[in-house]
C-alpha cells in the first residue's frame, strides 16, 4: 500500500508537497483528476494515476491544460468532485475557458491547482497566476507548509461546493517539490458514486438544474460576486490564517506560501520573535478584510513578503487606503520600495536581509575572512552548464539541424519551444534556437516568418517541437501554416513520451494515464492528411538526417521531418548500452588533428571528455550511455563503437 492510500488516520508520514496535495484530494473523495505535465506540478497527477484503480478515480493526462480544465469541469457539472493540476504557464493556456467557467459557476467541488516556479528553476518564465483569481473573481488559497498543502486541498473541495464555483490552490516549486512531515486524515471508503448525471432541464436561472452558461451575464456576474463575498466571510474565520508574535509588535510581517517558512526562519535567525509579528495568510483572494484590518491596527510598520508580483502588497495597500481613517497611516515595506527583490525566488537570507535593514539588527552569518575566502573559491570553480544527458536523441537531432543550416548557408534559423530541446538556446545545444516562447509558438512564429517572403525575406525557417508539444499546441499552427502556404520545415522530436517531466503518456502513445490501452494518434499520418510532405528518420543516423533535412528545406510549402528515437532516460532504455565505446588513442590526434577538437569542444557530450595529460579524447565509462553517435562525428575515425554484450 502506498503512503497515499494509507487508511490509518493520524499517522505521520513524510510527503512531497505534490503528494500532500494528491492525498488531500483523496481525503476529499475526488472522482476525476486531469492535468497536462509541467514542472513543478506533474507529481500530483502521477500519484493519483497510481492509485486510480484502487480509489475508483478517472485520471487523465489531457492534451493541454485548457482541455484538462474542461474535462475536470464536465465532472463538476455532473456533480462529481474534480481536480485539475498544471504549472503556471498552463493557467494561461486554460484561462480562456477559466473566465467563462468562473462566470457559469460549478456544481461538484472543482479545484484548480497551479504549481508555480518563482525564479524559473524549471520554466521559461516566472509567471504568477494569483492575479487570475482577482481578474476572474474566484477564491485563491496558498498553503504555507506541507500539512496545509494537504488540508487546504481537501477544504478547497468543500469551499467550491459551498459557493458553487471553482477554487484555486496555488503552490510553488519549494512547496510542491519539497517534502515535510504530514499528519494523515481519514480516507473515505472508495465507492462508485450513484449514476452520474448532468441536469439541464431547469431554467436559465437555476444553477443546479439548468444549462450551464455564463448567461444571463449580468445576473451570473452578480451571483459570482455573492459567491466571492461568501468565500470572504468564511476566510475571516479560517484556521489557515495565523498570527504569531507579540500583541504590539514593532513590525508586522505579512506573508503567504513558502515565504511563510522563510519568514519564520528569518525572524528566528535575527532573534526578533519579541519585536516582529508574523501574519501568515492562507486565503489570499478575496482578502479577509476584517482580519487583515485588525492586524494592520496593531502597529504602523508593515513588511510584505511574497514572490514574483506584489499581489498581496497591492491588495493590502488598497485595504489600508480604504480603512485609513480608522487604522491611521502605515509605512509599507515590500517589493514596491525595493526592500524585497522584485525578481527571482526568495529564501531565508533575503527575508533576513530585509528584516535587518528595517529593524537595524545586523546579521552576519560568518566572519569576514571565511566569507572572503569562500567568495574567491566560488569565483574560481567551473560552472556546470546544463547539457543534454549522455545518449540523448536531442543532441544528435540538433547537431544535424545545425549542420544542415550550415551547409544550406542562407542564414536559416530555428524557432523553438518548451522541452529538453530548449537547451538548444545554449552553446551546449549549438545555440541553434533563435526564438523560445510558449508551447506551440515554434510553428506559429515560423508560419509567420514563412510568409515574409512578400517583404523580401529569403531565410529558411525551421520550427522544432516534441511529440507531446505537437499535440498540445503545435497542431493549430500547423493548420495555419499549411492553409496559408507558408514555407517552413517542422522537425518533430519524437522520443516516445513527455520526457522532460517524467515520461507521462500523450495522445501519440498506445497507453493512458491509468496504464490502460488507448488508441495512439500517428503524427506522420496526421501531418500527411493535412497536406504536409512528411519524412521520418532515426536521428542517431546523422548523415541521413542532415541530408533529408537539406532536401526538405529546398522544397516549397510545409514539410515535416519526424526524428524518432526514444529518450535515454526512459525506463525501457535507461542503463542499457547499445554500444561499448572507446577512443583509439593511436588515431586520436588531439589538438593537432585540425578538427578543433570537434568531439569535445563543439559536440559536447558529458560522456566524451578530453584527457589533458594524454592530450587525447577519452570515453568516461561511468557517464557514457553507449548511443554510438560520436563515432560519426570524428573525422579521424578514432571513436570506436562495438556492439555491447547485453547483460
Amino acid at each position, binding site marked *: 500500500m*502506498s*503512503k497515499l492510500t494509507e487508511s490509518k488516520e493520524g499517522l505521520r*508520514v*513524510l510527503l512531497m508537497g505534490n503528494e500532500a496535495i494528491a492525498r488531500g484530494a483523496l481525503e476529499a473523495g475526488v472522482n476525476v483528476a486531469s492535468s497536462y505535465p509541467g*514542472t513543478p506540478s506533474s507529481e500530483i497527477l502521477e500519484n493519483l494515476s497510481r492509485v486510480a484503480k484502487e480509489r475508483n478515480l478517472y485520471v487523465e493526462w489531457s492534451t493541454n491544460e485548457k482541455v484538462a480544465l474542461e474535462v475536470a469541469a464536465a465532472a463538476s457539472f455532473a456533480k462529481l468532485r474534480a481536480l485539475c493540476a498544471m504549472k503556471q504557464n498552463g493557467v494561461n493556456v486554460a484561462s480562456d475557458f477559466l473566465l467563462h467557467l468562473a462566470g457559469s459557476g460549478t456544481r461538484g467541488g472543482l479545484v484548480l491547482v497551479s504549481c508555480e516556479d518563482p525564479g524559473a*528553476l*524549471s520554466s521559461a518564465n516566472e509567471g504568477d497566476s494569483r492575479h487570475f483569481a482577482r481578474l476572474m473573481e474566484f477564491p485563491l488559497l496558498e498553503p504555507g*507548509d506541507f500539512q496545509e498543502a494537504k488540508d487546504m486541498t481537501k477544504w478547497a473541495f468543500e469551499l467550491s461546493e459551498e459557493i458553487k464555483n471553482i477554487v484555486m490552490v496555488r503552490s510553488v*516549486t*519549494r*512547496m510542491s*517539490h*519539497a*517534502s*515535510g*512531515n504530514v499528519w494523515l486524515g481519514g480516507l473515505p471508503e472508495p465507492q462508485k458514486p450513484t449514476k452520474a448525471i448532468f441536469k439541464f432541464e431547469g431554467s436559465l436561472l437555476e444553477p443546479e438544474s439548468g444549462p450551464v452558461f455564463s448567461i444571463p451575464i449580468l445576473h451570473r456576474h452578480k451571483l459570482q460576486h455573492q459567491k466571492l463575498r461568501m468565500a470572504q466571510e468564511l476566510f475571516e474565520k479560517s484556521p489557515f490564517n495565523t498570527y504569531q508574535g507579540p500583541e504590539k509588535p514593532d513590525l508586522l510581517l505579512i506573508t503567504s506560501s*513558502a515565504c511563510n*517558512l*522563510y519568514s*519564520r*526562519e528569518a525572524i528566528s*535567525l535575527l532573534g526578533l520573535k519579541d519585536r516582529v509579528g508574523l501574519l501568515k495568510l492562507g486565503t489570499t483572494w478575496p482578502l479577509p478584510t476584517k482580519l487583515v484590518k485588525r492586524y494592520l491596527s496593531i502597529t504602523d510598520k508593515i513588511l510584505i513578503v511574497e514572490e514574483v508580483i506584489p499581489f498581496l502588497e497591492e491588495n493590502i495597500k488598497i485595504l489600508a487606503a480604504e480603512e485609513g481613517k480608522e487604522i491611521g497611516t502605515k509605512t509599507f515595506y515590500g517589493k514596491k520600495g525595493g526592500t524585497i527583490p522584485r525578481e527571482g525566488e526568495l*529564501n*531565508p*537570507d533575503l527575508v*533576513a536581509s530585509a528584516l535587518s535593514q528595517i529593524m537595524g539588527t545586523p546579521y552576519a*552569518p*560568518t566572519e569576514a575572512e*571565511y566569507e572572503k*575566502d*569562500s*567568495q574567491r*573559491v*566560488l569565483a*574560481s*570553480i*567551473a*560552472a*556546470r*552548464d*546544463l*547539457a*543534454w*544527458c549522455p545518449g540523448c536523441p536531442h543532441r544528435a537531432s540538433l547537431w544535424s539541424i545545425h549542420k544542415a543550416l550550415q551547409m544550406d548557408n542562407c542564414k536559416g534559423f530555428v524557432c523553438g519551444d518548451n522541452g*529538453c530541446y530548449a*537547451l538548444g538556446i545554449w552553446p551546449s545545444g549549438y545555440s541553434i534556437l533563435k526564438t523560445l516562447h510558449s508551447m506551440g509558438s515554434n510553428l506559429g512564429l515560423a508560419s509567420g516568418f514563412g510568409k515574409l517572403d512578400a517583404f523580401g525575406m529569403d531565410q529558411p525557417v525551421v520550427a522544432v517541437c516534441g511529440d507531446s508539444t505537437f499535440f498540445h499546441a503545435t497542431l493549430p499552427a500547423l493548420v495555419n501554416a499549411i492553409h496559408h502556404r507558408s514555407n517552413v520545415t517542422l522537425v518533430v522530436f519524437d522520443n516516445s513520451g513527455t520526457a*522532460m517531466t517524467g515520461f507521462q503518456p500523450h495522445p501519440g502513445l498506445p497507453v493512458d494515464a491509468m496504464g490502460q490501452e488507448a488508441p495512439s494518434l500517428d503524427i506522420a499520418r496526421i501531418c500527411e492528411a493535412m497536406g504536409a510532405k512528411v519524412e521520418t528518420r532515426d536521428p542517431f543516423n546523422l548523415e541521413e538526417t542532415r541530408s533529408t533535412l537539406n532536401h526538405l528545406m529546398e522544397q516549397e510549402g510545409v514539410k515535416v521531418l519526424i526524428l524518432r528515437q526514444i529518450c535515454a532516460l526512459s525506463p525501457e532504455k535507461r*542503463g542499457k548500452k547499445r554500444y561499448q565505446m572507446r577512443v583509439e588513442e593511436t588515431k586520436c590526434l588531439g589538438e593537432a588533428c585540425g578538427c578543433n*577538437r570537434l568531439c*569535445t*569542444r*563543439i559536440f*559536447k557530450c*558529458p560522456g*566524451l*571528455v*578530453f584527457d589533458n595529460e594524454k592530450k587525447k579524447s577519452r570515453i*568516461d565509462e*561511468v*557517464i557514457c550511455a553507449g548511443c554510438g553517435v560520436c563515432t560519426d562525428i570524428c573525422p579521424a575515425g578514432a571513436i570506436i563503437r562495438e556492439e555491447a554484450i547485453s547483460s
Partner: protein
Amino acid sequence: MKPLAQDPYNIIMAGVGGQGNVMASRVLANMLSLKGYWVTIGETFGSSQRGGAVMSHIRISSTSTWSPQIPRRKAHIIIALEPMEAIRVLATYGNRDVNVLANMRPIQPVSVIAGEQNYPTLEEIQDTLNRLSSHVWLIDATDEAMKLGNPILGNIIMIGAISGLGLLPVGLDDFMEAIRDTFPEKVAEINRRAFEIGKDKMAQ
C-alpha cells in the same frame, strides 16, 4: 528520539544530475523521519537534472518543519557525490564547524570538456575542503560502486558512510526499513551491500 546536537540540524546532499542525488536524499530523510524527527527536504529537479549541479537540503528537528532552503553558512554536514560540488556548496553554506563527506570521482562539466574552464586538481580540492571546514572525509564511492556493477550505487555507499561516521543516529536497520516500500525486493540486497561498504569504509 535522540536529542540533536543542533536543532534544526542541517544536511546538504549535492552532486550532478544523474547521480541519484534526489533519491539518496529522500532515503536518508525517510530514515530520519522513521526515527520520529520532523524532516524537511528542499530540492530542485526538472531541468536542473540535465548535467547541472543538484542539491538537496535536509533539515532535521525534534519540533517542527523548517524552511526547505537552508540559510547561507548554516550547514552542519555536507555530503557530496562529486568533489567539485562539495566545494561549490561549501563556498555558500559552509562554516568553520561544518563536516564534509565527499566522493572523489569527478564529473567534468561541459565547460571543462570544451577546455573553456579548468577542473581543480585533487590537491587543490583537498586543500580547499580542509581550509573551509572542520572535518573532511574522502571516499572513492563510485569506484566501489563499479565493483558492485553499477556506478549509481555510489549514492547509497555515501549514505552508508555517513551512518558509519556516527554523525547521524541512523544505521542499517533504518536504511532497510526506509527502502522497503520504495525499492523492489530484488534490488534491496545490492543496496544493502552498498550501504555496508560505505559504513565499513568509514569504520576503518
